[in-house]
Every structure is written in C-alpha cells, then in structure tokens.
C-alpha cells in the first residue's frame, strides 16, 4: 500500500487475466478435480461391491436337478400294505435312499449311459442327501403314490451342482475327497442326455436353512419370514412411539433442563453401538421378562429401541421444517394446540416422517449384531406360525443367515451367502425406493 491508493484506479485490460484471478481459477479447478476424484472413488467402491456380490451370488439362484422316473415299491415303503401314514412314517429317510439309488442305476443302464469308474455308492453320493427326505415328505403327504412309478426331480449333490456352475473342476476334484473326476464325467454325460439340468432355483427363496452337508438344499424362507416379522414389530412399535415422542417434544414440551436432557440422550442413543442394544435385549427381554430366545418379537423389540432415535430425529426435523406461520394461522382461528398439530402440522410433516421411518426400518433390516446376542443365530428349519403366535416362534433373520453361511466349511455356502446378500440388498433398495416415492407423493408446497 504505497502510492497506489483508491483515488487513482489502476488501468488494466479486461482481456488479460490478472495473476490473482488466475490463482483463484486454478484453486477452483483443483477443488473440482478433488471432488470428482472423491465421487469417483465412492462410485468405484460401490460398483466393485455390487459386481463381486452379484458375481458370487447369482449362482445361488440356479440349481442342478436330476430328473428320473422312480418306482415307489410298496414292500419297501409300506410293508403292511394299508397306506396308513402313521405306519409308513416308521420307514425313515434311510429306507428311501436305496430306492433312489436303485432307480438311478437302473435308469442309467436303460439309457446306455456308461457308469465307468463310478461305484454304486459313488453314484448315490451324486444325489443330494436332501432328496430322500423330500421324497419321504411328499409320500407321507400323499400315500397313494406308493406302488406307482413317478417322475421325480431331485437335487444333485452340491459338488456336482458346483461343477455345472464352474466352482468345481476336474483339477479340483482330483484333490477333493468328496468328489471324483469320474463322477463329474458321469454328470456331464447325464447332462448331455438331458437327465441332469440346471434351472432357476425358487427353493432358495422358499426353503428353510439346511445342514452343512447339504448346501444345495439351503434356502432363505425362514430368514425372510423372520426378518419380515421383526419389521412388523418394529413398524408397529417404533412408528407410533417415535412420532408421539417427537410431537410432544417438538410442539408441547416446555423448554427446560429436563427436556434438554432428554433431547441430548436421544441424540446419544442414535450413536450407541448396536451390539449394546443386543445386550440390553438379552438382559431385559429374555432374562428379566422371560420372552423366548430366537423369537422375532424379541428381535423386533431390540430393533425398535435401535430405530427409535432415528425416527425421532427425522420426525422432529420434519416437524421443525413446517413454517410457524401455519401454526399461527390455525391458533389464530381458535384451533387448539392439538388441532393445529394434527390438522395442519402433521400432514405437512408426513413425507419426512415416512422417509425417516423407512430409513430406520431399512437400517433395522440390515442389523446383525444385536440379533446374535438374543439367539437369532440358531439353526432353524421349522417355519414360524402365522402372526401373532409366530412372533414367539424361533426364526432366523436375513443378515444373520448371511453371517451363518459365511462360517460354514463347504464353499457352496459362500455362493449362498452372496445370494442372500443380493436378496437383502434388493429388499433395502425396494424400501429406499418406497421412501422416495412416498416423499414425492405426499410432498406439498406451502
């Protein structure tokens, strides 16, 4: 600041960019590049995640089946011959297994398919251990089938299934004690003959979980139902409690130290690690209140506690976003406080409340840690009853099922776990889309 004072404006051409402006432009460009890089990294990470999950998981939606005619010989399945389901149930799964093996053996012979290098035991091992159990169930449901020859579609063993999905190769079979290259060659011949085929696997969505030896039969049915029941509990509890609490705090509560303390605590609750809620649920709902373990009602209660802060914070934010002039207008007309809230403020805040609730629900749907502590990791094969009784039956949950499957030894479960993740992600995408649609639909200008 010497002689170049304000009185004598410096002469300069607009066509020449000054150094200051150049520096400013350069830093602007740098910032833009930085931002684009950040977004790029984020998008790339997401894409990688989605690609790897879908790449691993889409095979879970396909399954290999063996289709052959099976003669259900009466003297094996119903020795007394009176087709009584109770008596027939004395024949265990082990009684059915030889039947399937025999039928397969005979059928392959009839079709002139060479079983070179495959012993009868090895041939039987190509059929899933689940297949005789499924056959037994359908026979017991339908005793007239006995004595007839039926066309049966049975699950192939997980290793054979893996061969058609590229998971198991001739080279890996050499090292694997569970499967031999000869079995795979036979499987290939059967596939060429049309006896073995891979098709879409509805059972993955509808079946219950299966034990570690039969990954080919494992499904998400119980887990989906369990998650659904929990969401029902969360929705039924968290929405009314959360909205009522927010309305009271935002519209009616006096501003004093007590409400300030509540407010701080609600914000803090939102940051509490979810496993802490699991410990709380274990201590209060199971040990103290005596509710059953592994039950969706307990899971729902725990997730409600976890979701409440999210819903309260979102609801309060959307209530606060309603302009005070609307409240004044209603009060000025002689509406009571409650009328002004329920007739005017709440409808305007509704889109925000719904969005918050759905996001809270989505968060609860994907939550695993608290469920581990209340026993929802259990291996559950029985479907729960319809609600409300079903809320007290043991079930699994989607994210816990993913966790469970990733721990099992058979690599086929890795594929299942990825498949389950896809299902979970689809539910989450669906819920978030609902949130967007509801917000669009209910949004009103004022």
């Amino acid at each position, binding site marked *: 600041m010497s002689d170049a004072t304000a009185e004598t404006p410096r002469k300069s051409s607009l066509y020449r960019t000054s150094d200051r402006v150049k520096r400013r432009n350069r830093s602007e460009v740098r910032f833009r590049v930085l931002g684009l890089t950040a977004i790029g990294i984020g998008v790339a990470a997401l894409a990688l995640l989605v690609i790897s999950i879908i790449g691993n998981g889409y095979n879970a939606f396909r399954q290999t089946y063996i289709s052959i005619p099976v003669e259900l010989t009466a003297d094996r399945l119903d020795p007394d011959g009176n087709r009584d389901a109770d008596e027939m149930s004395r024949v265990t799964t082990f009684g059915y297994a030889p039947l399937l093996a025999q039928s397969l053996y005979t059928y392959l012979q009839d079709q002139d398919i060479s079983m070179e290098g495959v012993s009868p035991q090895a041939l039987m091992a190509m059929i899933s251990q689940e297949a005789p159990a499924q056959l037994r169930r359908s026979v017991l449901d339908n005793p007239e089938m006995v004595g007839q020859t039926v066309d049966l579609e049975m699950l192939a063993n997980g290793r054979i299934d893996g061969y058609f999905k590229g998971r198991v190769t001739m080279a890996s079979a050499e090292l694997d004690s569970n499967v031999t290259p000869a079995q795979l060659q036979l499987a290939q011949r059967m596939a060429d003959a049309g006896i073995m085929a891979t098709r879409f696997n509805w059972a993955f969505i509808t079946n219950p979980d299966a034990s570690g030896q039969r990954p080919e039969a494992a499904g998400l049915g119980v887990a989906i139902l369990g998650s659904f029941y929990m969401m029902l509990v969360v929705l039924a509890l968290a929405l009314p409690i959360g909205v009522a609490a927010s309305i009271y705090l935002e519209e009616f509560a*006096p*501003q004093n130290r007590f409400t300030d303390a509540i407010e701080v605590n609600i914000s803090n609750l939102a940051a509490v690690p979810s496993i802490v809620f699991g410990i709380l649920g274990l201590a209060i709902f199971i040990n103290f209140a005596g509710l059953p373990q592994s039950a969706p009602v307990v899971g729902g209660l725990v997730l409600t506690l976890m979701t409440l802060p999210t819903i309260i914070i979102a609801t309060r934010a959307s209530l606060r976003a309603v*302009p005070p*002039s*609307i*409240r*004044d*207008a*209603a*009060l*000025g*007309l*002689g*509406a*009571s406080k409650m*009328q002004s809230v329920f*007739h*005017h403020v709440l409808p*305007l805040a509704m889109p925000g409340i719904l969005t918050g609730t759905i996001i809270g629900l989505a968060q609860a749907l994907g939550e695993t840690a608290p469920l581990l502590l209340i026993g929802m990791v259990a291996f559950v094969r029985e479907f729960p009853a319809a609600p409300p009784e079903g809320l007290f039956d043991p079930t699994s949950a989607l994210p816990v099922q993913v966790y469970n499957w990733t721990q099992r030894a058979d690599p086929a479960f890795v594929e299942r776990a990825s498949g389950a993740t896809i299902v979970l992600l689809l539910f989450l995408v669906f819920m978030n889309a609902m949130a967007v649609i509801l917000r669009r639909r209910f949004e*009103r*200008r*004022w």
Partner: protein
Amino acid sequence: MNDMRVLERAVDNQDLKIAARDVDVYYGTTHAIKSVNVEILDKTVTAFIGPSGCGKSTFLRCLNRMNDTIDICRVTGDILLDNEDIYDAKVDPVQLRAKVGMVFQKPNPFPKSIYDNVAYGPRIHGLSRNKAELDEIVEKSLRRAALWDEAKDRLDQPGTGLSGGQQQRLCIARAVATGPEVLLMDEPCSALDPIATAQVEELIDELRERFSVVIVTHSMQQAARVSQKTAFFHLGELVEYGDTSQIFTNPQDSRTESYITGRIG
C-alpha cells in the same frame, strides 16, 4: 386515496369493545410494553403506528393471547373484552381466539383448497349443522373478503395457488368465517403490491360495519386512509392515542409530531 379524507372520517360509534389497563409485557428480562392504557371502540378501525420494534405488534398479539405460544413472554395488567378479563384463569384462549380473529403479516393460507381454508374455522367451532350451511358461510365470508367472484369457480383448488393479494384476502375470509367480534391485523399489506393493498384497505373499511378492526401498520398513509382512531407507540410506550384526524393534523406530543413528519422512525 389522499390524506385529506382523514378529516371527513369521524368516529361514529362510542361503544367500548376492548379496554387495556396498565398492560406490561416482558420477553424474558426485556420490558417490551410499558404500562399501556388504551380503549378500543366497536365498529371502528384502530391503527397502531410507530417505528420498528416499538411493541405495536406485541401489544396486538396480547389482544388474542397469541403471545401465550411464546414461552418466555409474560403479560401483566388487565385486558377487558366486553368487560371480561381475557387473561382470567377461567378463560380458554381457544374460545377467545374464535371471538378475536387475526390476520398475519405474511399471507399464510393452509396448503388445502380455498373452500377448506375458509371452512376450517366453522368446522372446528361447529358453526354449521350441515353442508349447505357450511357452503353458505364459505360464500358469505368470501364475499365479505371481496374474493368470491375470483374464487367461486375454483373453490377446490389450493389456496396457496392464489396471488399474494388474493391469499391475504383468503386469510381475511378465513378469519371472518368464524364470526369474530374483533379482527386483529398485523401489517396485513406489507407483503402486497400497491393494487392488492388498495383492495385490502377498501375491504377493511367495509369490515368496519360489523367488526372492530385493529390494524398494525408501518405506513402512516395507510393508517390515515383506513382508520378512525390511531395509537402511536414509541419504545414500548403508548405515546398518544386519539382520533386519526387529530393525530395526523394536530399531534399533542412532540414525539408523535416528529414521527409523522418523518424525523424519527
């Protein structure tokens, strides 16, 4: 609209509607209104004028207890409406506000249809027994607010879709629909253009036939145009209160004179 009309505007009614005695208002520790005494007449337009922050809006909001909604606001003294103390413990502010309607500075129609906006007050106060009666109230109120001709064909369209001036007239119709005895207006024209302002002012003059109207305004011209009585507030005090013609032509207090001649405020 020239100020000469002031002289023609005589007060033709001497019935007392609202009487405020020694009213003090505190916002926390701030003394916003200092010992105000004022008597508001029935079927008269009373204007509150004064510089920003002088307490005229605060005092207006005391008259229908809208200040109750502000936690830190405290009101002492008596405000009598037809000789009943509105701050009495027995008085429910909800009932009071049905008698003392209010129109706000910014048009604030509900985001509902025009019909529902006007019908809301009668509905919550149970003023109509059936749909036909409600229709009648809505039509009468819209006519009284000079909005019927513009709105009759689109009663089911949102009130927020109207122009600013129409919205403010809708708010007036809404306030009129509950059948109030006093209508409080807090700078009703400050968000409107001159044409809409003129329409609303004309309307205020018509409303005088039925209600006592109290209007807060920043514009001295507006006070002179629409009111019969004028109160001048300064720094929380009621400096001068009298006939509008007297306030504007022959103010008794030097502060009033400074304000209306543009030296303060």
